[in-house]
């Protein structure tokens, strides 16, 4: 094929495809990622059905000790009153004049608590906690407001079964009405 003809072909393509990006001609450069997609570091999100929870277990008593060591600095020794957000108490306060949105008063799913602690806490050392430590911290916080029994062990099986007080408190604006 002569250079002139190649150029002519290229110009034709530009004319034909330049009107819309949807029709643009481009080289697909994505690399097959089945293996990558199967790795645990690409499965950080935990859904309300418990999908993504690692195997592990912990109790409130274990969690209390970890909390004092790694969380109380920002969240306060009792999980309230520090520079970070209040975590417990105020269950039932959402309709009051001064509502407090704590984990226990506001969050609809306990799976979210595990998900968030594991990915983002402690804020100065994210991803440093073991699965057992995260279960223990969840058990501690939830048991403080009797959402979980004080002696009940939390694990990948029963964490999704925890019934949060504000489970039905959210009204989705999308997609019905913006």
């Amino acid at each position, binding site marked *: 094929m002569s250079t002139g003809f190649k150029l002519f072909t290229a110009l034709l393509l530009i004319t034909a495809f330049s009107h819309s990006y949807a029709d643009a001609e*481009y080289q697909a450069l*994505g690399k097959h990622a089945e293996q*990558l997609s199967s790795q645990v570091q690409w499965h950080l*999100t935990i859904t*309300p059905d418990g999908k993504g929870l690692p195997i592990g277990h912990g109790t409130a008593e274990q969690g209390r000790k970890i909390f004092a060591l790694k969380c109380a600095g920002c969240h306060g020794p009792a999980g309230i009153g520090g520079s970070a957000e209040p975590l417990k108490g105020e269950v039932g306060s959402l309709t009051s004049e001064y509502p407090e949105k704590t984990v226990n008063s506001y969050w609809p799913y306990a*799976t979210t608590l595990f998900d968030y602690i594991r990915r983002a806490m402690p804020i*100065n050392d994210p991803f440093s906690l073991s699965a057992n430590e995260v279960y223990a911290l969840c058990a501690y916080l939830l048991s403080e407001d009797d959402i979980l029994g004080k002696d009940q062990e939390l694990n990948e099986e029963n964490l999704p079964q925890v019934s949060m007080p504000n489970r039905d408190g*959210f009204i989705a604006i999308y997609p019905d009405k*913006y």
Partner: protein
Amino acid sequence: MTKPTDSRRQFLQKVALGGAFAGTFSLPVWAADKSNLAYDLPKWMTKPGKGFSNYGQPSPHEKEVIRWISANPDAQGNGVSWTPLHDLQGTITPNGLHYERHHNGVPQIDPTQHLLLIDGLVDKPLSFDVASLLRYPMISRTCFIECGGNSNSGWRSNPIQSKAGYAHGLVSNAEWTGIPLKLLLQEVGIKAEAKWVIAEAADAAALNISIPLEKLLDDAILALYQNGERLRPENGYPMRLVLPGWEGILNVKWLRQLRLTNEPAMTRDETSQYTELMPDGTARQFTFIMEAKSLITSPSLGMMLPDNPGTYQISGLAWSGRGKIARVEISADGGETWADAELHSPILDRAFTRFSLPWHWQGDYSVLQSRATDETGYVQPTRDALVQQRGQHGFFHYNAIVSWEITEQGDINHVYGI
């Protein structure tokens, strides 16, 4: 090159000497006739200026024009910085002044080590490196990005006395250039049951949030450039989502993964945050669209009106997550009477629109307000109407009319109306 002759060398030496003793004895008397203009001109016209710079910086005389930082003292990467809207004109936010919201600092990402993975309910999971993405066809889109928590001090019972940008500047407007996300989603192949996409960031909060697939197929961009240059680290380098008109949290910076799913993940930032608690104790969730809003940036708090009476150019910004701004009205009497402001071109879909109106101030007590209407007919509410509808504990999505009180002395305060 030829060697200079002796006479030329002597001449050069004389000139050098003359330069050192100019005006004393070496120059003839006729040279000192006082017609030299150096003393009549500013000093920067009489000496060579500074040399070139590899990356330009604002004038040192503008050093007060800065983002105002409000961060957690125990976790300095957790907080916000506000765009100084009151110091800016036009509609494009300079990259160094684009607002910031970080949950755990700005990650220092090496682009050669960064991947975007698209997986979940797809025909074939694919990963994309930065070098490959830079070869895709790109589009540019000028739009605002606004934090869902912008202007949240408006919910308080007393009006905050902060400058316009430092109360309402968690919104900025830029030209974003990147790949229509639709292209990448087509490449992985979308399974029929996919309805949501969990986006995840590569920061130290590993921020994750659920986004309707419909939006990503509509007008979302995987942005690589901001106002012509590669993204700033604090704005998502090397890549971020831009979802025109939707709240800032969804415009995920430092994007590392898009996982297609059939349901939202109910992450922390779509349940405990970015939801709006209503007076009945329920909370509005997935309130993605930023409603129409406007703000007078000048005159505004922190300025004053020097001439009484005097003529002032009222100027401000309006924007809507639903489309173009159709109208901005201005009141000088706290909403009793209104006049249409001029809307400056270009008036773009889901972007800042600059408005202005000359105002003859007669020295009397005034309350300046602006009220935006977008092309869908939505009218920016008064604060009373918004509080009536949502109560005072919604925290997010505050878009009420802002009132600036002008005293007889020309001072400016923030008020909630007359």
